[in-house]
Protein backbone atom coordinates (compact mmCIF):
# COMPACT_ATOMS: atom_id res chain seq x y z
CA UNK A 1 0.00 0.00 0.00
CA UNK A 2 2.57 2.53 1.10
CA UNK A 3 4.93 1.66 -1.72
CA UNK A 4 2.29 2.51 -4.31
CA UNK A 5 1.63 5.92 -2.81
CA UNK A 6 5.29 6.88 -2.51
CA UNK A 7 6.15 7.42 -6.20
CA UNK A 8 2.94 9.31 -7.05
CA UNK A 9 3.61 11.54 -4.12
CA UNK A 10 7.21 12.39 -4.82
CA UNK A 11 6.70 13.12 -8.52
CA UNK A 12 4.99 16.50 -8.15
CA UNK A 13 7.73 17.53 -5.73
CA UNK A 14 10.49 16.76 -8.14
CA UNK A 15 8.62 18.53 -10.93
CA UNK A 16 8.46 21.44 -8.56
CA UNK A 17 12.19 21.69 -7.95
CA UNK A 18 13.19 23.32 -11.29
CA UNK A 19 10.20 25.62 -10.98
CA UNK A 20 11.60 26.94 -7.75
CA UNK A 21 14.88 27.91 -9.37
CA UNK A 22 12.90 29.93 -11.87
CA UNK A 23 10.92 31.83 -9.25
CA UNK A 24 13.91 32.14 -6.98
CA UNK A 25 12.44 35.03 -5.02
CA UNK A 26 9.03 33.56 -4.19
CA UNK A 27 10.24 30.58 -2.07
CA UNK A 28 7.05 28.60 -2.37
CA UNK A 29 8.64 25.54 -0.84
CA UNK A 30 11.29 24.89 1.74
CA UNK A 31 14.51 23.39 0.36
CA UNK A 32 13.70 19.70 0.20
CA UNK A 33 17.03 17.93 0.07
CA UNK A 34 18.85 19.08 3.21
CA UNK A 35 15.63 19.10 5.21
CA UNK A 36 14.97 15.55 4.17
CA UNK A 37 18.25 14.32 5.63
CA UNK A 38 17.95 16.56 8.66
CA UNK A 39 14.61 14.97 9.57
CA UNK A 40 16.03 11.50 9.10
CA UNK A 41 19.04 12.44 11.22
CA UNK A 42 16.77 13.67 14.02
CA UNK A 43 14.75 10.46 13.94
CA UNK A 44 17.92 8.35 13.94
CA UNK A 45 19.43 10.37 16.77
CA UNK A 46 16.38 9.72 18.95
CA UNK A 47 16.65 6.04 18.06
CA UNK A 48 20.30 6.00 19.15
CA UNK A 49 19.48 7.61 22.49
CA UNK A 50 16.75 5.03 23.04
CA UNK A 51 19.10 2.17 22.17
CA UNK A 52 22.27 3.31 23.95
CA UNK A 53 21.49 1.86 27.40
CA UNK A 54 20.53 -1.46 25.85
CA UNK A 55 23.63 -1.66 23.69
CA UNK A 56 25.75 -1.03 26.76
CA UNK A 57 23.78 -3.63 28.67
CA UNK A 58 24.72 -6.21 26.04
CA UNK A 59 28.38 -5.11 25.98
CA UNK A 60 28.78 -5.37 29.72
CA UNK A 61 26.95 -8.69 29.99
CA UNK A 62 29.88 -10.26 28.12
CA UNK A 63 32.52 -8.87 30.47
CA UNK A 64 33.89 -10.48 33.57
CA UNK A 65 33.45 -8.68 36.86
CA UNK A 66 37.18 -7.79 37.05
CA UNK A 67 37.18 -6.46 33.48
CA UNK A 68 34.25 -4.20 34.39
CA UNK A 69 35.81 -2.76 37.52
CA UNK A 70 39.14 -2.21 35.70
CA UNK A 71 37.85 -0.45 32.57
CA UNK A 72 34.40 0.92 33.43
CA UNK A 73 31.09 0.52 31.62
CA UNK A 74 31.91 2.26 28.32
CA UNK A 75 34.90 0.14 27.27
CA UNK A 76 34.60 -2.85 24.98
CA UNK A 77 35.11 -6.20 26.73
CA UNK A 78 38.82 -7.14 26.74
CA UNK A 79 37.64 -10.66 25.96
CA UNK A 80 34.10 -11.80 25.31
CA UNK A 81 33.18 -14.00 28.22
CA UNK A 82 30.11 -16.02 29.18
CA UNK A 83 31.15 -16.09 32.83
CA UNK A 84 28.48 -13.57 33.87
CA UNK A 85 25.72 -15.64 32.29
CA UNK A 86 27.02 -18.71 34.09
CA UNK A 87 27.02 -16.81 37.39
CA UNK A 88 23.42 -15.76 36.86
CA UNK A 89 22.17 -19.21 35.86
CA UNK A 90 23.90 -20.72 38.89
CA UNK A 91 21.74 -18.61 41.16
CA UNK A 92 18.37 -18.67 39.35
CA UNK A 93 16.26 -21.53 37.97
CA UNK A 94 15.86 -19.56 34.78
CA UNK A 95 14.14 -22.21 32.64
CA UNK A 96 11.49 -22.68 35.28
CA UNK A 97 10.85 -18.93 35.48
CA UNK A 98 10.82 -18.72 31.69
CA UNK A 99 8.18 -21.42 31.42
CA UNK A 100 6.01 -19.73 34.05
CA UNK A 101 6.25 -16.39 32.28
CA UNK A 102 5.50 -17.87 28.86
CA UNK A 103 2.42 -19.71 30.10
CA UNK A 104 1.07 -16.71 31.98
CA UNK A 105 1.69 -14.11 29.26
CA UNK A 106 0.50 -16.24 26.34
CA UNK A 107 -2.75 -17.22 27.99
CA UNK A 108 -3.44 -13.69 29.17
CA UNK A 109 -2.73 -12.26 25.69
CA UNK A 110 -5.07 -14.74 23.99
CA UNK A 111 -7.85 -14.75 26.56
CA UNK A 112 -7.63 -11.01 27.17
CA UNK A 113 -7.89 -10.18 23.47
CA UNK A 114 -10.79 -12.59 22.97
CA UNK A 115 -12.73 -11.23 25.94
CA UNK A 116 -12.01 -7.66 24.77
CA UNK A 117 -13.27 -8.40 21.28
CA UNK A 118 -16.49 -9.97 22.60
CA UNK A 119 -17.29 -7.20 25.06
CA UNK A 120 -16.33 -4.42 22.67
CA UNK A 121 -18.59 -5.98 20.05
CA UNK A 122 -21.55 -5.79 22.43
CA UNK A 123 -20.73 -2.20 23.36
CA UNK A 124 -19.36 -0.64 20.17
CA UNK A 125 -21.54 -2.44 17.65
CA UNK A 126 -24.44 -3.81 19.72
CA UNK A 127 -24.72 -0.56 21.66
CA UNK A 128 -26.36 -2.39 24.56
CA UNK A 129 -28.28 -0.30 27.03
CA UNK A 130 -26.03 1.27 29.64
CA UNK A 131 -22.90 0.83 27.54
CA UNK A 132 -21.54 4.18 28.73
CA UNK A 133 -21.87 3.07 32.34
CA UNK A 134 -20.27 -0.28 31.53
CA UNK A 135 -17.35 1.40 29.80
CA UNK A 136 -16.93 3.63 32.82
CA UNK A 137 -16.75 0.55 35.07
CA UNK A 138 -14.22 -1.18 32.82
CA UNK A 139 -12.15 1.93 32.57
CA UNK A 140 -12.34 2.20 36.34
CA UNK A 141 -10.95 -1.32 36.52
CA UNK A 142 -7.91 -0.34 34.44
CA UNK A 143 -7.41 2.79 36.50
CA UNK A 144 -7.49 1.27 39.95
CA UNK A 145 -4.07 1.17 41.54
CA UNK A 146 -3.03 -2.40 42.22
CA UNK A 147 -2.42 -1.38 45.80
CA UNK A 148 -6.19 -1.00 46.19
CA UNK A 149 -6.76 -4.64 45.17
CA UNK A 150 -3.75 -6.55 46.40
CA UNK A 151 -4.69 -7.38 49.98
CA UNK A 152 -8.17 -8.73 49.12
CA UNK A 153 -6.83 -10.56 46.04
CA UNK A 154 -4.19 -12.20 48.19
CA UNK A 155 -6.81 -13.58 50.60
CA UNK A 156 -9.12 -14.48 47.70
CA UNK A 157 -6.39 -16.48 45.98
CA UNK A 158 -5.69 -18.36 49.21
CA UNK A 159 -9.38 -19.10 49.73
CA UNK A 160 -9.78 -20.51 46.20
CA UNK A 161 -6.56 -22.51 46.27
CA UNK A 162 -5.07 -20.56 43.36
CA UNK A 163 -2.43 -18.88 45.52
CA UNK A 164 1.08 -19.78 44.35
CA UNK A 165 -0.26 -21.16 41.07
CA UNK A 166 -0.06 -19.42 37.70
CA UNK A 167 -3.88 -19.43 37.50
CA UNK A 168 -4.42 -16.66 40.02
CA UNK A 169 -2.22 -14.34 37.98
CA UNK A 170 -3.73 -15.46 34.67
CA UNK A 171 -7.28 -14.79 35.83
CA UNK A 172 -6.43 -11.44 37.40
CA UNK A 173 -4.56 -10.11 34.37
CA UNK A 174 -7.03 -11.46 31.80
CA UNK A 175 -9.67 -9.32 33.46
CA UNK A 176 -7.45 -6.28 33.99
CA UNK A 177 -6.07 -6.31 30.44
CA UNK A 178 -9.47 -7.02 28.88
CA UNK A 179 -10.87 -4.03 30.73
CA UNK A 180 -8.44 -1.83 28.84
CA UNK A 181 -8.93 -3.78 25.61
CA UNK A 182 -12.70 -3.40 25.77
CA UNK A 183 -12.31 0.30 26.22
CA UNK A 184 -9.91 0.73 23.29
CA UNK A 185 -11.72 -1.63 20.91
CA UNK A 186 -15.20 -0.28 21.50
CA UNK A 187 -14.06 3.27 20.80
CA UNK A 188 -12.55 2.09 17.52
CA UNK A 189 -15.51 -0.19 16.71
CA UNK A 190 -18.01 2.61 17.16
CA UNK A 191 -16.31 4.37 14.23
CA UNK A 192 -17.07 1.43 11.91
CA UNK A 193 -19.40 2.56 9.12
CA UNK A 194 -22.95 1.34 10.02
CA UNK A 195 -23.62 0.57 6.34
CA UNK A 196 -21.02 -2.20 6.53
CA UNK A 197 -22.87 -3.96 9.35
CA UNK A 198 -26.36 -3.25 8.02
CA UNK A 199 -25.49 -4.79 4.69
CA UNK A 200 -24.35 -7.96 6.44
CA UNK A 201 -27.46 -8.02 8.64
CA UNK A 202 -29.74 -7.65 5.62
CA UNK A 203 -27.91 -10.55 4.01
CA UNK A 204 -29.19 -12.59 6.94
CA UNK A 205 -25.94 -12.90 8.85
CA UNK A 206 -26.40 -13.39 12.61
CA UNK A 207 -24.49 -11.60 15.35
CA UNK A 208 -21.88 -14.30 15.62
CA UNK A 209 -21.26 -14.38 11.87
CA UNK A 210 -21.10 -10.60 11.59
CA UNK A 211 -18.54 -10.54 14.39
CA UNK A 212 -16.19 -13.03 12.72
CA UNK A 213 -16.73 -12.27 9.04
CA UNK A 214 -17.15 -8.49 9.10
CA UNK A 215 -15.91 -6.96 12.36
CA UNK A 216 -12.97 -9.24 13.09
CA UNK A 217 -11.17 -8.78 9.72
CA UNK A 218 -11.47 -4.99 9.94
CA UNK A 219 -10.27 -4.99 13.55
CA UNK A 220 -7.35 -7.34 13.01
CA UNK A 221 -4.58 -4.72 12.94
CA UNK A 222 -5.81 -3.23 16.20
CA UNK A 223 -6.28 -6.69 17.71
CA UNK A 224 -2.72 -7.71 16.94
CA UNK A 225 -1.38 -4.52 18.48
CA UNK A 226 -3.54 -5.20 21.51
CA UNK A 227 -2.34 -8.76 21.83
CA UNK A 228 1.27 -7.69 21.81
CA UNK A 229 0.58 -5.10 24.48
CA UNK A 230 -1.17 -7.69 26.63
CA UNK A 231 1.66 -10.18 26.27
CA UNK A 232 4.38 -7.68 27.02
CA UNK A 233 2.52 -5.94 29.83
CA UNK A 234 1.74 -9.24 31.52
CA UNK A 235 5.29 -10.47 31.07
CA UNK A 236 6.58 -7.31 32.70
CA UNK A 237 4.09 -7.18 35.57
CA UNK A 238 5.76 -6.84 38.88
CA UNK A 239 3.60 -6.06 41.86
CA UNK A 240 0.77 -8.62 41.71
CA UNK A 241 2.98 -11.59 40.67
CA UNK A 242 5.37 -10.68 43.45
CA UNK A 243 2.59 -11.05 46.02
CA UNK A 244 0.55 -13.91 44.51
CA UNK A 245 3.53 -16.01 43.38
CA UNK A 246 5.74 -15.96 46.43
CA UNK A 247 7.05 -19.49 45.91
CA UNK A 248 10.20 -19.75 43.80
CA UNK A 249 8.77 -22.58 41.66
CA UNK A 250 6.10 -20.28 40.22
CA UNK A 251 8.13 -17.07 39.99
CA UNK A 252 8.22 -15.18 36.72
CA UNK A 253 11.39 -14.04 34.93
CA UNK A 254 11.37 -10.39 36.09
CA UNK A 255 10.73 -11.33 39.70
CA UNK A 256 13.57 -13.82 39.69
CA UNK A 257 15.82 -10.99 38.49
CA UNK A 258 14.48 -8.48 40.98
CA UNK A 259 14.98 -10.77 43.98
CA UNK A 260 18.61 -11.16 42.97
CA UNK A 261 19.11 -7.44 42.40
CA UNK A 262 18.67 -6.74 46.10
CA UNK A 263 21.68 -8.88 47.01
CA UNK A 264 24.96 -7.04 47.35
CA UNK A 265 27.12 -10.07 46.69
CA UNK A 266 26.30 -10.20 42.97
CA UNK A 267 28.43 -8.55 40.26
CA UNK A 268 26.90 -5.87 38.12
CA UNK A 269 27.94 -7.85 35.03
CA UNK A 270 25.92 -10.83 36.25
CA UNK A 271 22.92 -8.57 36.63
CA UNK A 272 23.60 -7.32 33.10
CA UNK A 273 23.60 -10.91 31.88
CA UNK A 274 20.45 -11.72 33.85
CA UNK A 275 18.72 -8.62 32.49
CA UNK A 276 19.68 -9.59 28.97
CA UNK A 277 18.29 -13.10 29.47
CA UNK A 278 15.13 -11.64 31.00
CA UNK A 279 14.36 -9.28 28.14
CA UNK A 280 15.37 -11.65 25.34
CA UNK A 281 12.08 -13.61 25.23
CA UNK A 282 9.93 -10.50 24.82
CA UNK A 283 12.39 -9.19 22.27
CA UNK A 284 12.05 -12.37 20.20
CA UNK A 285 8.28 -12.17 20.48
CA UNK A 286 8.41 -8.53 19.49
CA UNK A 287 10.49 -9.17 16.37
CA UNK A 288 8.14 -11.91 15.25
CA UNK A 289 5.22 -9.60 15.90
CA UNK A 290 6.73 -6.84 13.75
CA UNK A 291 6.15 -9.06 10.71
CA UNK A 292 2.64 -10.14 11.71
CA UNK A 293 1.71 -6.55 12.32
CA UNK A 294 2.74 -5.29 8.90
CA UNK A 295 0.99 -8.24 7.26
CA UNK A 296 -2.14 -7.68 9.34
CA UNK A 297 -2.16 -4.02 8.46
CA UNK A 298 -1.88 -4.69 4.73
CA UNK A 299 -4.75 -7.18 4.83
CA UNK A 300 -6.87 -4.78 6.84
CA UNK A 301 -6.32 -1.81 4.55
CA UNK A 302 -7.17 -3.71 1.35
CA UNK A 303 -10.62 -4.70 2.73
Amino acid at each position, binding site marked *: MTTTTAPTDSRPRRADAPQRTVHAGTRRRRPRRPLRWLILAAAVLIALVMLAPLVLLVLNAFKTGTDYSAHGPLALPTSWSLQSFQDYLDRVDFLRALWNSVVISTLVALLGTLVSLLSAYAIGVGRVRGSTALLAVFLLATMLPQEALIYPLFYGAQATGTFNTVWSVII*VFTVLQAAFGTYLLSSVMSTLPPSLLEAAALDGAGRWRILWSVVYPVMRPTLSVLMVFFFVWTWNEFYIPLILLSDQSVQTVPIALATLQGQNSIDITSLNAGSLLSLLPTLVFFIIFQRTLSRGVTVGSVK
Partner: protein
Amino acid sequence: MTTATPSAAPPLRRRRSARRAGYWMYLLPMIIGTAVIVLLPFAVNVFISLFRWKGGIAPMRWNGLQNYVDLLHDSQFWLAFTNTIFMIVGIVIVPTLLGLLLAAMLFDYIGREFGGRTAAFLRATYYLPQILPIAVAGFIWSWVLATQNGLLNSVIEALGVKSPPDWLGDPNIAIYAVMLMLIWLQLGYPVVIFMAALQRVDPELYEAASLDGAGWWRRFRAITVPQIRPEVFVVVITATVGALKVFAPILILTGGGPEGSTVVPSYYSYRNFFELSKVGYGSAIATAMSIVIFLVAGVMLWLQRRGAREEAAG
Protein backbone atom coordinates in the same frame (compact mmCIF):
# COMPACT_ATOMS: atom_id res chain seq x y z
CA MET B 1 -32.00 -3.98 -1.03
CA THR B 2 -35.10 -2.01 -1.95
CA THR B 3 -37.10 -5.12 -2.77
CA ALA B 4 -36.25 -6.73 0.55
CA THR B 5 -37.25 -3.79 2.74
CA PRO B 6 -41.08 -4.01 2.64
CA SER B 7 -41.30 -7.74 3.30
CA ALA B 8 -38.58 -7.65 5.95
CA ALA B 9 -40.08 -4.82 8.01
CA PRO B 10 -42.01 -6.78 10.70
CA PRO B 11 -39.37 -9.48 11.37
CA LEU B 12 -36.68 -6.81 11.40
CA ARG B 13 -38.27 -5.13 14.43
CA ARG B 14 -38.54 -8.41 16.27
CA ARG B 15 -35.00 -9.27 15.32
CA ARG B 16 -33.71 -5.95 16.58
CA SER B 17 -35.03 -6.39 20.12
CA ALA B 18 -33.81 -9.98 20.18
CA ARG B 19 -30.44 -8.78 18.99
CA ARG B 20 -30.17 -6.16 21.74
CA ALA B 21 -30.77 -8.87 24.36
CA GLY B 22 -28.43 -11.32 22.66
CA TYR B 23 -25.49 -8.94 22.85
CA TRP B 24 -25.44 -9.33 26.63
CA MET B 25 -24.11 -12.87 26.18
CA TYR B 26 -20.92 -11.36 24.75
CA LEU B 27 -20.47 -9.24 27.84
CA LEU B 28 -20.95 -12.03 30.35
CA PRO B 29 -17.29 -13.12 30.81
CA MET B 30 -16.19 -9.54 31.27
CA ILE B 31 -18.96 -8.66 33.71
CA ILE B 32 -18.34 -11.69 35.94
CA GLY B 33 -14.58 -11.16 35.80
CA THR B 34 -14.83 -7.50 36.71
CA ALA B 35 -17.12 -8.23 39.64
CA VAL B 36 -14.84 -10.90 41.11
CA ILE B 37 -11.40 -9.46 40.34
CA VAL B 38 -12.03 -5.72 40.65
CA LEU B 39 -15.26 -4.59 42.28
CA LEU B 40 -15.34 -7.00 45.20
CA PRO B 41 -11.66 -6.62 46.16
CA PHE B 42 -11.92 -2.86 45.92
CA ALA B 43 -14.97 -2.83 48.20
CA VAL B 44 -13.03 -4.96 50.69
CA ASN B 45 -10.11 -2.53 50.48
CA VAL B 46 -12.37 0.40 51.30
CA PHE B 47 -13.73 -1.63 54.22
CA ILE B 48 -10.21 -2.30 55.54
CA SER B 49 -9.41 1.41 55.35
CA LEU B 50 -11.92 2.01 58.13
CA PHE B 51 -9.84 -0.02 60.59
CA ARG B 52 -6.52 0.07 62.35
CA TRP B 53 -4.94 -3.18 61.34
CA LYS B 54 -1.40 -4.55 61.33
CA GLY B 55 -2.38 -7.28 58.85
CA GLY B 56 -2.54 -11.08 59.10
CA ILE B 57 -4.11 -12.40 62.29
CA ALA B 58 -3.69 -9.14 64.23
CA PRO B 59 -6.99 -7.74 65.54
CA MET B 60 -8.84 -5.18 63.40
CA ARG B 61 -9.87 -2.11 65.40
CA TRP B 62 -12.67 0.08 64.11
CA ASN B 63 -11.33 3.50 63.27
CA GLY B 64 -14.11 5.15 61.29
CA LEU B 65 -12.83 7.86 58.98
CA GLN B 66 -9.87 8.68 61.22
CA ASN B 67 -7.38 7.23 58.70
CA TYR B 68 -8.65 9.72 56.13
CA VAL B 69 -8.51 12.62 58.58
CA ASP B 70 -4.90 11.68 59.35
CA LEU B 71 -4.13 11.64 55.63
CA LEU B 72 -5.25 15.23 55.21
CA HIS B 73 -2.74 16.31 57.85
CA ASP B 74 0.10 14.15 56.54
CA SER B 75 2.72 16.26 54.72
CA GLN B 76 4.30 13.15 53.12
CA PHE B 77 0.97 12.37 51.53
CA TRP B 78 0.69 15.86 50.04
CA LEU B 79 4.27 15.80 48.81
CA ALA B 80 3.51 12.47 47.14
CA PHE B 81 0.66 14.06 45.20
CA THR B 82 2.78 17.07 44.23
CA ASN B 83 5.38 14.70 42.83
CA THR B 84 2.66 13.13 40.70
CA ILE B 85 2.73 16.29 38.56
CA PHE B 86 6.32 15.46 37.59
CA MET B 87 5.19 11.96 36.74
CA ILE B 88 2.49 13.41 34.46
CA VAL B 89 5.02 15.55 32.60
CA GLY B 90 7.32 12.54 32.14
CA ILE B 91 4.65 10.02 31.19
CA VAL B 92 1.88 12.00 29.51
CA ILE B 93 2.88 15.40 28.21
CA VAL B 94 6.34 14.87 26.78
CA PRO B 95 5.77 11.40 25.28
CA THR B 96 2.36 12.24 23.77
CA LEU B 97 3.54 15.44 22.06
CA LEU B 98 6.77 13.86 20.94
CA GLY B 99 4.90 10.70 19.97
CA LEU B 100 2.45 12.61 17.78
CA LEU B 101 5.28 14.33 15.96
CA LEU B 102 7.32 11.16 15.59
CA ALA B 103 4.38 9.03 14.45
CA ALA B 104 3.35 11.60 11.84
CA MET B 105 6.96 12.08 10.79
CA LEU B 106 7.55 8.35 10.39
CA PHE B 107 4.24 7.64 8.70
CA ASP B 108 3.77 10.68 6.54
CA TYR B 109 7.34 11.71 5.79
CA ILE B 110 10.06 9.13 6.44
CA GLY B 111 7.76 6.30 5.32
CA ARG B 112 7.34 8.02 1.95
CA GLU B 113 10.78 9.48 1.44
CA PHE B 114 12.87 6.60 2.71
CA GLY B 115 10.46 3.66 2.51
CA GLY B 116 8.25 1.82 4.95
CA ARG B 117 11.08 -0.36 6.18
CA THR B 118 13.03 2.57 7.56
CA ALA B 119 9.93 3.87 9.29
CA ALA B 120 9.12 0.45 10.75
CA PHE B 121 12.67 0.02 11.99
CA LEU B 122 12.71 3.41 13.70
CA ARG B 123 9.33 2.71 15.24
CA ALA B 124 10.68 -0.56 16.61
CA THR B 125 13.63 1.17 18.28
CA TYR B 126 11.36 3.74 19.93
CA TYR B 127 9.12 0.98 21.14
CA LEU B 128 11.90 -1.24 22.47
CA PRO B 129 11.97 0.14 26.06
CA GLN B 130 8.24 -0.60 26.32
CA ILE B 131 8.87 -4.32 26.06
CA LEU B 132 11.37 -4.37 28.90
CA PRO B 133 10.25 -5.81 32.21
CA ILE B 134 10.19 -2.94 34.67
CA ALA B 135 12.63 -4.93 36.79
CA VAL B 136 15.11 -4.80 33.90
CA ALA B 137 14.44 -1.15 33.03
CA GLY B 138 14.81 -0.27 36.69
CA PHE B 139 18.13 -2.06 36.92
CA ILE B 140 19.35 -0.41 33.69
CA TRP B 141 18.47 3.10 34.87
CA SER B 142 19.85 2.65 38.35
CA TRP B 143 23.03 1.77 36.45
CA VAL B 144 22.66 4.66 33.95
CA LEU B 145 22.18 7.19 36.75
CA ALA B 146 24.66 5.78 39.26
CA THR B 147 27.21 8.31 40.51
CA GLN B 148 30.16 5.93 40.31
CA ASN B 149 30.62 4.07 37.03
CA GLY B 150 27.13 5.15 35.94
CA LEU B 151 26.64 5.21 32.18
CA LEU B 152 25.51 8.82 32.04
CA ASN B 153 28.27 10.09 34.27
CA SER B 154 30.88 8.00 32.44
CA VAL B 155 29.85 9.79 29.25
CA ILE B 156 29.83 13.18 30.97
CA GLU B 157 33.27 12.53 32.44
CA ALA B 158 34.55 11.39 29.07
CA LEU B 159 33.44 14.78 27.75
CA GLY B 160 35.73 16.41 30.28
CA VAL B 161 33.38 17.45 33.09
CA LYS B 162 35.13 17.03 36.45
CA SER B 163 32.23 16.59 38.90
CA PRO B 164 29.09 15.25 37.21
CA PRO B 165 25.78 15.50 39.07
CA ASP B 166 24.72 12.95 41.66
CA TRP B 167 21.52 12.11 39.78
CA LEU B 168 19.74 10.00 42.34
CA GLY B 169 21.43 11.32 45.47
CA ASP B 170 20.64 15.02 45.16
CA PRO B 171 17.11 15.82 46.40
CA ASN B 172 16.90 18.76 44.00
CA ILE B 173 17.41 16.76 40.83
CA ALA B 174 16.42 13.17 41.70
CA ILE B 175 12.86 13.67 40.47
CA TYR B 176 14.15 14.93 37.10
CA ALA B 177 16.42 11.92 36.83
CA VAL B 178 13.39 9.70 37.38
CA MET B 179 11.55 11.65 34.67
CA LEU B 180 14.34 10.87 32.19
CA MET B 181 13.72 7.20 32.69
CA LEU B 182 9.96 7.61 32.40
CA ILE B 183 10.17 9.46 29.07
CA TRP B 184 12.52 6.81 27.75
CA LEU B 185 10.16 4.08 28.90
CA GLN B 186 6.97 5.66 27.66
CA LEU B 187 7.75 7.18 24.26
CA GLY B 188 7.16 4.05 22.17
CA TYR B 189 3.60 3.57 23.38
CA PRO B 190 2.10 6.68 21.74
CA VAL B 191 4.25 6.24 18.64
CA VAL B 192 2.98 2.71 17.98
CA ILE B 193 -0.66 3.48 18.81
CA PHE B 194 -0.64 6.62 16.66
CA MET B 195 1.03 4.89 13.74
CA ALA B 196 -1.51 2.07 13.87
CA ALA B 197 -4.22 4.72 13.96
CA LEU B 198 -2.78 6.47 10.92
CA GLN B 199 -3.25 3.26 8.92
CA ARG B 200 -6.97 3.89 9.16
CA VAL B 201 -6.67 7.34 7.61
CA ASP B 202 -7.56 7.46 3.95
CA PRO B 203 -4.29 8.10 2.04
CA GLU B 204 -6.25 10.15 -0.49
CA LEU B 205 -6.71 12.82 2.15
CA TYR B 206 -2.95 13.29 2.28
CA GLU B 207 -2.54 13.12 -1.46
CA ALA B 208 -5.27 15.67 -2.01
CA ALA B 209 -3.75 17.94 0.61
CA SER B 210 -0.23 17.77 -0.81
CA LEU B 211 -1.52 18.32 -4.32
CA ASP B 212 -3.23 21.42 -2.95
CA GLY B 213 0.21 22.52 -1.80
CA ALA B 214 -0.28 21.90 1.94
CA GLY B 215 3.07 21.55 3.69
CA TRP B 216 3.90 18.89 6.22
CA TRP B 217 2.92 20.98 9.24
CA ARG B 218 -0.44 21.91 7.75
CA ARG B 219 -1.18 18.30 6.86
CA PHE B 220 -0.18 17.34 10.40
CA ARG B 221 -2.59 19.80 11.98
CA ALA B 222 -5.44 19.52 9.50
CA ILE B 223 -5.43 15.77 8.85
CA THR B 224 -3.23 13.73 11.16
CA VAL B 225 -4.26 15.06 14.56
CA PRO B 226 -8.04 15.33 13.93
CA GLN B 227 -8.21 11.94 12.23
CA ILE B 228 -6.60 10.03 15.07
CA ARG B 229 -8.28 11.94 17.89
CA PRO B 230 -9.89 8.83 19.43
CA GLU B 231 -6.47 7.24 19.86
CA VAL B 232 -4.93 10.46 21.20
CA PHE B 233 -7.62 10.56 23.86
CA VAL B 234 -7.06 6.92 24.77
CA VAL B 235 -3.31 7.46 25.05
CA VAL B 236 -3.66 10.60 27.15
CA ILE B 237 -6.18 9.01 29.51
CA THR B 238 -4.30 5.76 30.01
CA ALA B 239 -0.96 7.53 30.39
CA THR B 240 -2.35 9.99 32.91
CA VAL B 241 -3.74 7.16 34.97
CA GLY B 242 -0.39 5.40 34.65
CA ALA B 243 1.35 8.54 35.88
CA LEU B 244 -0.93 8.74 38.91
CA LYS B 245 -0.05 5.12 39.73
CA VAL B 246 3.73 5.08 39.11
CA PHE B 247 5.29 2.65 41.51
CA ALA B 248 8.08 0.34 40.37
CA PRO B 249 10.43 3.05 38.97
CA ILE B 250 10.35 4.84 42.31
CA LEU B 251 10.78 1.64 44.31
CA ILE B 252 13.73 0.51 42.22
CA LEU B 253 15.48 3.83 41.49
CA THR B 254 15.11 5.89 44.63
CA GLY B 255 12.98 4.13 47.24
CA GLY B 256 11.22 7.48 47.66
CA GLY B 257 14.48 9.23 48.55
CA PRO B 258 16.72 11.12 48.82
CA GLU B 259 15.18 12.80 51.85
CA GLY B 260 11.71 11.66 50.74
CA SER B 261 11.92 13.95 47.71
CA THR B 262 10.62 11.41 45.18
CA VAL B 263 7.84 9.75 47.17
CA VAL B 264 4.64 9.10 45.16
CA PRO B 265 1.22 7.95 46.46
CA SER B 266 1.47 4.30 45.40
CA TYR B 267 4.91 3.98 46.95
CA TYR B 268 3.65 5.61 50.12
CA SER B 269 0.81 3.12 50.40
CA TYR B 270 3.25 0.26 49.72
CA ARG B 271 5.45 1.53 52.53
CA ASN B 272 2.53 1.56 54.92
CA PHE B 273 1.44 -1.92 53.85
CA PHE B 274 4.74 -3.74 53.94
CA GLU B 275 7.31 -1.68 55.82
CA LEU B 276 5.27 0.04 58.52
CA SER B 277 2.56 -2.66 58.86
CA LYS B 278 -0.16 -0.02 58.85
CA VAL B 279 -2.54 -1.89 56.57
CA GLY B 280 -5.58 0.25 57.41
CA TYR B 281 -3.68 3.45 56.68
CA GLY B 282 -2.19 1.96 53.50
CA SER B 283 -5.67 1.00 52.34
CA ALA B 284 -6.86 4.54 53.03
CA ILE B 285 -4.03 5.90 50.85
CA ALA B 286 -4.92 3.43 48.11
CA THR B 287 -8.57 4.45 48.35
CA ALA B 288 -7.75 8.17 48.26
CA MET B 289 -5.50 7.55 45.25
CA SER B 290 -8.30 5.70 43.51
CA ILE B 291 -10.71 8.57 44.13
CA VAL B 292 -8.26 11.12 42.70
CA ILE B 293 -7.70 8.90 39.68
CA PHE B 294 -11.45 8.48 39.13
CA LEU B 295 -12.02 12.21 39.33
CA VAL B 296 -9.22 13.09 36.92
CA ALA B 297 -10.18 10.33 34.51
CA GLY B 298 -13.88 11.10 34.86
CA VAL B 299 -13.30 14.65 33.68
CA MET B 300 -11.20 13.40 30.77
CA LEU B 301 -13.76 10.78 29.82
CA TRP B 302 -16.44 13.43 29.85
CA LEU B 303 -14.33 15.62 27.56
CA GLN B 304 -13.83 12.68 25.25
CA ARG B 305 -17.57 11.98 25.04
CA ARG B 306 -18.24 15.63 24.39
CA GLY B 307 -15.57 15.75 21.70
CA ALA B 308 -17.02 12.67 20.01
CA ARG B 309 -20.53 14.12 20.14
CA GLU B 310 -19.38 17.40 18.64
CA GLU B 311 -17.61 15.52 15.90
CA ALA B 312 -20.73 13.49 15.16
CA ALA B 313 -22.84 16.65 15.08
CA GLY B 314 -20.40 18.69 13.01
